[in-house]
């Protein structure tokens, strides 16, 4: 039973980059656009550790082998780390066939790369989607 005081630094960083373009291939008839985005996020507690010597109330119980000591608190630093990279690419094109009829196509790819497993386990994932629809104007 007891506790420990010490100074800790909790540091969070995030980088976000994006680039996009719109091009009008045929005025009023055909345009296209694309967006790429990238995010990297990190967070962690520095120098989080516990030693038995700093426990003011160490407890050893006769007859027990799983006695309580700061010595056995050894996973905190690992579980405080967070790091992920996410990027996404989306391409869209609009085609106006007539004043009434138009087509739109979109492609999307997203990737989430979990580089430090956090409290929610492994979160790696990818999404791929293509869609198209026709628009008719009366």
């Amino acid at each position, binding site marked *: 039973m007891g506790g420990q005081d010490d100074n800790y630094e*909790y540091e969070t960083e995030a980088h976000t980059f994006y680039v996009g373009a719109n091009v009008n291939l045929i005025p009023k008839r055909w345009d296209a656009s694309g967006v790429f985005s990238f995010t990297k996020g990190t967070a962690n507690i520095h120098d989080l550790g516990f030693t038995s010597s700093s426990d003011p109330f160490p407890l050893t*119980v006769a007859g027990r082998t799983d006695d309580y000591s700061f010595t056995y608190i050894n996973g905190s630093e690992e579980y405080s780390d967070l790091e992920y990279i996410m990027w996404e690419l989306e391409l869209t094109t609009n085609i106006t066939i007539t004043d009434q009829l138009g087509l739109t196509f979109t492609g999307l790819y997203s990737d989430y790369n*979990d580089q430090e497993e956090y409290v929610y386990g492994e979160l790696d994932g990818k999404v791929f989607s293509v*869609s198209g629809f026709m628009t008719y104007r009366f």
Partner: protein
Amino acid sequence: MKITTTIVMSVFIVLGLACSAFAEDAKPYDIEISVGGSMNDLDGAGRVAEYESTVDKNANWILGGKVSYTLDKVAFDAYGEYLDGDDQAYGANLDLDRILMFETDYLRFFHRLDHDNLDHLLASLKRSGQGATVYHTDFNASDNYGITRSEWKNQAKLNVPMVPGLSFTFNHRFEERKGMDQARTMSKCSSCHVVGMSKDISETTNEWNPSVNYRIGPISMNYDFMYRSFNSGSDVPENLYMEAQNPGKPPGANLDFIARLQYDYDDGYLPYSRTPDSEKWSHKIKMKADLPANNTLNLGYVYSEATNNNSDDGGSALYGDAGKELSVDYWAINGGWRWKINKEMAFTLKGKYQDMDASEVGVDVRDIEAVIAGTEQTYAEFLGEDFDFRRHSAYDEDEYSLDAKFAWKILKELKLKLGYGLEYLDRENAEYHHVTDDTTTHKFSIGSKWRPVMGLRVTADYAFTYVDDPYVFHNAICPSWEEAQALGFDPGTYSTNSWYSKYVYGVRTMDRSNQPETVHDIRLKTHWMAASNINTNVHMHYKISENGDVGGSDWEQNMFNGGLNVMYTPITKLAINFGYNYFYDKYEAMFCSAFYNG
């Protein structure tokens, strides 16, 4: 809500078909219908598509449409989009000669939630070859969590033609949350065993908000009433708590420990993770007067009451019995005066007083019937007291604030702003919560808007905040070994039967806080049109917060956020934009970790 969705979709379809019948020879009508589909693939966890419901399906429809109608003094438009049951949006606007206006919007989307696998509890106490001594059980490890949120908003406004300046508005909002989330609880007398279970969520929020506005000459007035009810039909998970375990004795020899516990295995399944139903009423009155000599005066009054409707449901082993509904009353008055001295200068003064009171209530804690081993006494009898207590809410507080600002356009290209803000906060029940009684905050600010050359605009702001007695928690730090000895504790005085209240909480010392005593806040924004086809903006924000008035060590936080955005149009048919943003936050504090042995 399915009925609502069906009605909205039906109205949209009927109106679309009706309008299409007239479309050929009536230009006031515009109709647009979209039909298509998507093919999708999701590989791995759902975090990559946090707000996308359709990616779980191999394919989905895309259905959409718009209708608009304008004729004489009537204007109507509507839109709709359907991707799947969890991704829909509809809306409509109606304007009858600017006398009656109505707007409705409905949105539904899915939010994927993470699933805490509880494995991180191994970080707390783990010993090689013996596993963890903080155990955990995830009873629904394979469930995926997510909430479908839908919101239907309506707004109607009536401008009374016979009384110029008089109007009535009526706002309504209905929100629904449905799905499944994770509920966690400790399954022992302290955090020795944590469990997670799935919980079905079904919650609704219904908000009614009528108001009346009247303007006569230079004076305008507004009265606004709001009633909001929150109802939870969510499952209430139940947990069978583990048997009491005396850490000072071998497993199985636990009987003498039961007398100290409020509840355990013998109480059977007990509910947890409950969300109470609640209601809120508010009344707001506002008045604005445009006075002579470029003076403007504002006055306002607010009263509200929020009530927890389930706190009088009766007690249990877990919660005790408060015996009455708990409510928080709030009222505030505020005023403002703006004086436009001349074309270059303006002065603004604002003041506010607010008071918040929460119910004070006696909580009847269920008596522990088990007796101390070898005696005929319960612990309450042994101590000569029960464990009932009086709840003094931390919400009870009074707050006074005053803000003054002066704006001066020194040059055609340069505008300066000076400001001072004073805030005094009095926490009425601070003594019961071991926190600061009252806090006074002074904030000084200076800012400028500058156009040094054509195409370049620079905005710079600096603010310094000084807090006299920021919010701190008294006696928050675990003592060092030397301090513990100085307090009279040594291994000889400690035993496995020692009370937490004496040996853990009782020996804590000094103040801790995560609130600053001083804050420097610097912001810079530039907007530069480098050429007719290059547009850039740069933004930076740096904030350093410190508190050197807490025991043990200083508290400090450094935050920086900055970025660049560029838009480049090399030819009329091509536009390129790119940007970068960097966020950094470092938080340095003394961290007091308390550990318990059972």
